[in-house]
């Protein structure tokens, strides 16, 4: 039994090291970081965290990021749920082509669309708003959401729908209170993926914002260039970006452990 876990523990240990190193940096002053090499902080210096948590130009970034990620996750799920149901239950004109077209949007490199995106959102007056970033991120999150949800929905027998319709349920009254709880795990996993890809994205978020909706990731790049290399504050801000993600994994871990197969492509 011990031997079985050896590889896993070794991998996890190695995988944690870079994160530990950043944590280590975050608790040290800049002079200490550049001055000497230590495996752990000599004196716990909390000033880096204090800077990030008290300076509005820093912590507003976290709030902005969380706002657009939340909008993105909710909107993506709201539009993807009915669409995934349609793909999973019915054949309709052009369904296969439509599905692949949706997937192609997941494949378009953000670098390709930076400038047009900027012009588009600027001309409709959405530049530097949370909704703009959320909409832009939907481009790659919605196709993925439809794909994952479709896999989960296809695992639910169609007889359930048919029985409900025969009993006189309308589509909304069947879909929201009966069908959605059945695919609860799927919704959880999809929300996790939407959160993840939106939270880590930098290029589009940086291009579509300037002041009011500037995400934390963009603020971090600015600090690198502005004040030389402020390693300590940078590391502290980086450590704090991991916290929301770690919380989300904690909530979604049971859905993943329960398993899903996605039998259909």
């Amino acid at each position, binding site marked *: 039994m011990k031997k079985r*876990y050896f*590889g*896993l523990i070794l*991998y996890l240990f190695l*995988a*944690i*090291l*870079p*994160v530990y*190193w*950043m944590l280590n940096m975050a608790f040290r002053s800049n002079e200490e970081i550049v001055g000497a*090499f230590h495996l752990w902080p000599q004196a716990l210096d909390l000033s880096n965290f204090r800077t990030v948590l008290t300076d509005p130009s820093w912590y507003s970034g976290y709030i902005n990021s969380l706002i657009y990620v939340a909008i993105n996750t909710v909107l993506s799920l709201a*539009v*993807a749920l009915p*669409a995934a149901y349609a793909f999973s239950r019915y*054949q309709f*004109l052009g*369904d296969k082509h*439509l599905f*692949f077209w949706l*997937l192609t*949007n997941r*494949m378009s*490199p*953000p*670098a*390709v*669309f930076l*400038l*047009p995106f900027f012009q588009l959102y600027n001309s409709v007056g959405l530049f530097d708003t949370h909704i703009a970033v959320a*909409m832009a991120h939907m*481009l790659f999150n*919605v196709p993925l959401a*439809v794909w994952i949800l479709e*896999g989960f929905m296809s695992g639910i027998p169609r007889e359930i729908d048919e029985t409900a319709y025969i009993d006189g349920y309308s589509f909304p009254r069947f879909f929201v209170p009966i069908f959605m709880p059945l695919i609860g795990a799927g919704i959880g996993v999809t929300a996790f993926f939407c959160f*993840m890809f939106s939270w*880590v994205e*930098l290029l589009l978020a940086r291009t579509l914002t300037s002041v009011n909706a500037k995400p934390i*990731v963009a603020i*971090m*790049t600015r600090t690198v260039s502005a004040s030389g290399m402020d*390693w300590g504050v940078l*590391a502290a801000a*980086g450590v704090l970006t*991991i916290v*929301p*993600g*770690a919380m989300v*994994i904690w909530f979604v*871990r049971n859905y*993943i*452990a*329960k*398993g*899903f*197969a*996605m*039998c*259909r*492509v």
Partner: protein
Amino acid sequence: MKPINNMAWFLVLPVVLCVAFSAVIPLMTVVNYSVQDILGPDQKVFVGMEWFKATMRDPELHGALIRQLIFTGTVLTIEIPLGILLALSLPASGWRSSLALVLLAMPLLIPQNVVGTIWQIFGRSDIGLAGVAVNAMGISYNYTNSSLDAWLTVVIMDVWHWTPLIALLAFAGLRAIPEAYYQAARIDGASRLAVFRYIQLPKMSGVLLIGLLLRFMDSFMIYTEPFVLTGGGPGNATTFLSQYLTQKAVGQFDLGPAAAFSLIYFLIILLACFLFYTFLQQNQQSTDKSTGSGS
């Protein structure tokens, strides 16, 4: 068979509208740029296919494409088997499982530029743990001036960042296999390898396909991590397609050539994914038929 119902279009409509707004208009803008020479805000000359011809012959683009293919190939060959191995060795349930899952998935939720920053610090030969450790072992390592070191660092960073995705998906696939399959295998006296080959792998194929496609697309579009870590250098050792494109579009403001390049780039990914998708879908159908589960 699924019933034919064209009313289902109404259920799909919100998705189509949402995605079309952010996809079709920008795509048309790029197409528009790609056939014009933009001299100023109001000065544009139609040049037809000129930029496409120039882009196809650009030796730097060929270099970036080859580096991109090697990079994507390398990370996929490492990440997929490693992810499956990790998933197989994860404990099935209990607090150990939860703890391992959370630790394993942590790199996934770190923003791309923070990933770059972490490895930038971690790999530095003066203040980074990895840099100092490797140098102390007598191997000279410095990712800022050795091309090979820089390339290896980017590969290791990507493996560190994205192997958990494959592992999580594979783990979820494994957990969905009913216990009865394993019991049947035990009765038949199947070896560990046979259980993997004939039960676990086919049952994981759905989630692995998602993982494979996602990793292919994302590694082909990688931009932020190498940008933060190496800035594409030293020389152009870690300049991949997105990097080169952004240099052209933003740095030199060559909108026409950059747009033509964008379209070619997009078409390459599209073609590769289409081949993947069709191939795997046919594969799936043939296995469905042979095992008789036509669901």
